[in-house]
């Protein structure tokens, strides 16, 4: 910077934001948090508050009873177990496969590399949800309808993840180390395992969190291809809680609260990394 010291006036203008900005931020934060807060208040009340004309914003004492009712209505343990199996499998496989592919695209020379990577980038733009009908038929042919495989296998890879891990390898894996390991007689897989993987672990962790959360929250495909009475996931179990004619809101929201709790805990523990992860993933302007 070659500028002279700013005058008092400009220092004020460019300095720390005033009360107005913080006021706006508090309002935004309140708007972000209120529906969440509310979704944890209702499960602690009984259904009489729903018909009440007064606003109900304080917790009551019915939480245990409501949670009990959730487990009486749907097999929520099974739903939680299924969601856990699906999300964990998808996360582990997706992160591993995309790390391998990303490493290859970033650090290994091979013919057609640029063209193949361009193909990955283009596929990231495809609305693959629109292929659901043939995909459903394919699942029928494979005999996978109503099994967890139908949800797991198509989610094992995605273009964005490959793109992300390529970026990570590009930035974090030093060429010198790859070459040195090669000279030492290390195989390509050995280089990946001993050199690349330790270096890209932070970005892989961020991808893992996002994949886990997205899979946990997936709704439409599990709704179509699974049978909620045999293989519920948390999300389809919730929607079947909400499918009666007379809606039992405290019941539904109790289920919703249980289903959100694991993610919320993960988020509170890891929010710093998640935020940093979103920031890293952005396309640089």
């Amino acid at each position, binding site marked *: 910077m070659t*500028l002279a010291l*700013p005058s008092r006036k400009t220092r004020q203008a*460019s300095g720390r*934001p005033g009360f107005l*900005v913080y006021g706006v*931020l508090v309002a935004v934060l309140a708007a*972000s*948090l209120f*529906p969440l807060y*509310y*979704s944890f208040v209702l499960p602690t009340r009984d259904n009489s508050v729903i018909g*009440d004309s007064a*606003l109900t914003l304080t917790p009551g004492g019915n939480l245990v009873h409501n949670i009990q009712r959730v487990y009486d209505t749907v097999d929520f343990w099974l739903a939680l177990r299924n969601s856990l199996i699906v999300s964990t499998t998808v996360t582990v496989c997706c992160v591993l496969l*995309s790390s391998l*592919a990303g490493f290859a*695209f970033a650090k290994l*020379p*091979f013919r057609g*590399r*640029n063209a193949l990577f361009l*193909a990955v*980038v283009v596929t990231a*733009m495809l*609305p693959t949800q629109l*292929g659901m009908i*043939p*995909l*459903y038929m*394919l699942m029928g042919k494979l005999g996978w309808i109503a099994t967890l495989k139908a949800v797991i*296998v*198509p989610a094992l*890879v*995605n*273009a964005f993840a490959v793109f992300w891990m390529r970026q990570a390898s590009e930035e974090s894996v030093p*060429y*010198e180390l790859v*070459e040195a390991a090669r*000279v030492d*007689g290390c195989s*390509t*897989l050995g280089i990946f395992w001993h050199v690349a993987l330790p270096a890209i672990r932070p970005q892989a962790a961020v991808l893992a969190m996002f994949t886990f959360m997205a899979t946990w*929250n997936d*709704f439409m495909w599990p709704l179509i291809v699974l049978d909620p009475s045999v293989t519920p996931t948390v999300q389809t179990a*919730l929607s079947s809680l*909400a499918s009666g004619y007379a809606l039992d809101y405290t019941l539904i*929201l109790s289920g*919703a*609260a249980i289903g959100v709790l694991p*993610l*919320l805990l993960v988020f509170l523990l890891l929010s*710093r990394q*998640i*935020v940093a992860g*979103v*920031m890293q*993933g*952005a*396309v*640089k*302007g």
Partner: protein
Amino acid sequence: MTVTETRPGTGAPMAPVPGRHHRRGGWRTRLTRFDLRYTPYVLIAPFFVIFGVFAAYPLLYTGWISFHKWAIIEGDQGWTGLHNYQLLFQDSYFWNALLNTTLLLVFGTGVQLLLALWLAGILNRKLSGSAVWRAGVVLPHIVSVVAVSLVFAQLYGFHTGIINDVLSLAGIDRIDWQASRWTAIPAVSTIIIWRWAGYYALIFLAAMQGVPRELHEAAMLDGASHRRIFWSITVPSIRPTVIFSVVMSTIGAMQTFTEPQLFDTQGTEGTGGSDRQFQTLMMYLYEKGFREFNAGYAATLAWVMFLLIAVLSGINYALSRRIASKD
């Protein structure tokens, strides 16, 4: 998107590692050469195989099915050419769903991106406790869309929802939010905005942090206002990110399903209210394909959506290039 050609580091000192010897045996050399040449393909193969079988092939096959009378269970009932397309373009439910999706795109995604830009502008200032604000705005994105949609459906309830309670405190009559398109679409839009504005705000913020501060400070010395600097310097500087976000969120918005699906608390199986007042294209696809098992018609709808998304992405790309480069 450019792929930078990376070359092996040349100046790297490679110290000999003690205790390691190279056996220059024939099979070993051949194995190494094989490893060097083919392992990269093995590493990228899973992506292309799985993506090809479970994403690319179904997407293409959708186009083929759309030229047939085809039921999900019975299978192919014969080639009908463009018949499904003719039916679709005369189908008032299709136009209804297209209108609803377009309105959601404008009110939901449009507002959400503008809000995100504005929020990013605020978060980009020197704030105390910035980590808290950032985590706070992205939190809604983490929680389940199903839970959120159910909570919002409750908030928008006619007799019992908090939103009507607040409105009645202000002397406004209770609104039956689900009753018509013009109340349901704004309500569903708020769910979408709530979930995504913070997420895109962080993406914009990340890009904004790459904008050189000198530009900002020079404009400040010239007496430009915060607003002017934001629209004339900051936003044009993050053009690629803006374009990327507009295109990606458009693709997402065209496929809106969960929020309006669950906003309908009567659970009318994808019709979006008794008069389809908030049925989206994706809900109509779900209804045709997985409630009526009419694969041919649903595939036609999917393929038309695919073309619409391609055209829209192109228009968006062109528009946001122009808008974001104006200064």
